[in-house]
């Protein structure tokens, strides 16, 4: 992957790449994890996403919300990664490292429970078909309205609603299934 170290010359309305990195690198990181990129590949895939962001920054319309645009790029890069012969067989790892990176303000027990819940979310998300997964993550976790979801993923609004409905059902079923038939 080539470096994106070239100096940006953004227009007045276009955010600077450095600012996007400063503000949204965490969002890119979380998004890639939610889209099924294993922890050990997150850094490299995040790099690829940011290179594309740098390259396409001129296409970004500053009047539009930034995160759905970033999500669209992250989704395509993550999909390419997961489709590759090597990586299609990999599964996201449990969030072992994340345990030591919990935000402040909670005790160890609360942190552990939070990590357990996230691990369950990742495992349930991994059972979803990629397109449905993207709609589900962008709407249910990121809180983006469906029209913005549809625009980010370049799909009709009705398709987004349809994928969301199925994804909700599948996610719920997976959580129950992964929780065990007790």
């Amino acid at each position: 992957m080539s470096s994106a170290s070239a100096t940006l010359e953004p227009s007045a309305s276009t955010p600077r790449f450095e600012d996007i990195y400063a503000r949204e690198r965490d969002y890119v990181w979380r998004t890639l994890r939610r889209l099924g990129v294993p922890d050990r590949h997150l850094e490299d895939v995040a790099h690829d996403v940011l290179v594309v962001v740098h390259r396409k920054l001129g296409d970004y319309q500053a009047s539009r919300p930034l995160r759905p645009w970033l999500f669209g790029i992250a989704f395509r890069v993550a999909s390419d990664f997961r489709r590759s012969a090597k990586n299609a067989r990999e599964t996201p790892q449990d969030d072992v490292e994340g345990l030591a990176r919990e935000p402040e303000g909670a005790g160890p027990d609360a942190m552990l429970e939070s990590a357990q819940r996230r691990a369950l979310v990742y495992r349930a998300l991994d059972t979803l078909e990629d397109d449905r997964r993207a709609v589900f993550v962008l709407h249910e976790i990121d809180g983006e309205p469906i029209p913005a979801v549809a625009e980010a993923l370049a799909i009709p609004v009705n398709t987004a609603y349809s994928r969301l409905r199925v994804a909700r059902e599948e996610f719920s079923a997976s959580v129950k299934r992964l929780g065990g038939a007790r």
Partner: protein
Amino acid sequence: MSEHDDPLSALLEAERDAPGMPADVSARLASRLGIPMPGAGGASDPGNGSPPDAASSGGGASGGASGVATELSRWTLARATQLGLVFVLGAGTGVVADRMLSHPEPAPPTATIIAAASHVTVPAPAAPVASEPIATALAPVEEPAPTVPTSRGDGEAHATSDAERLWLERAEAAYGSGDARAALSALDAHARRFPHGGLSEERDALRIRALYLVGERDEADRRAERFASAYPASVFARQITRAREGAEQTHTPVTVP
């Protein structure tokens, strides 16, 4: 789910607060991308809300949590020594899921889960599991006693014990680390110990994926066909499809010593 005030919302809420990019990764990426980084500032976004002021975000979740991380790491290590870290993160999620889906009210402290889990004992597998760190973390404790007896047949719903889940987590962890042979060994052990357990569907699905990974495509295809008939609406169908697609793109079978 945003408009459905159900337990899944709480589950997703935990993910919204997930940690962001670690400070060390952030610094490396900035360097690779040619971005000047004033200081080694940590994550800039504490949550999923509106972006914070980039100029003032020197600490952040990952960078500013070092004290907590140290405490948690120490505490986690002690817990993992007792219970097996993979159970805490893997099988333990089953406990959380079950509780959330069954009891929408506020969950009890995790200590309750750990206390319950500490009664789970698992025997050594018949075949050694090659994934060393995982195998070490999951070093078997003592001879059995699943917290919930598994049963099947007689038309009654079969239960899933923590021990059964722990065994399957062992296989999943091996598969996740790329050691499909170890995963298959663990699945064999699981099948021997829990021939009529409540996780047969998971076990079968994982076996198919592991077979694809080691290059035994014909056997995997046969099992996948049977699996699709047995579980036409399985939540694991997509994972099997991905594994098959991965195998189809691979010309050289993976050889695992």
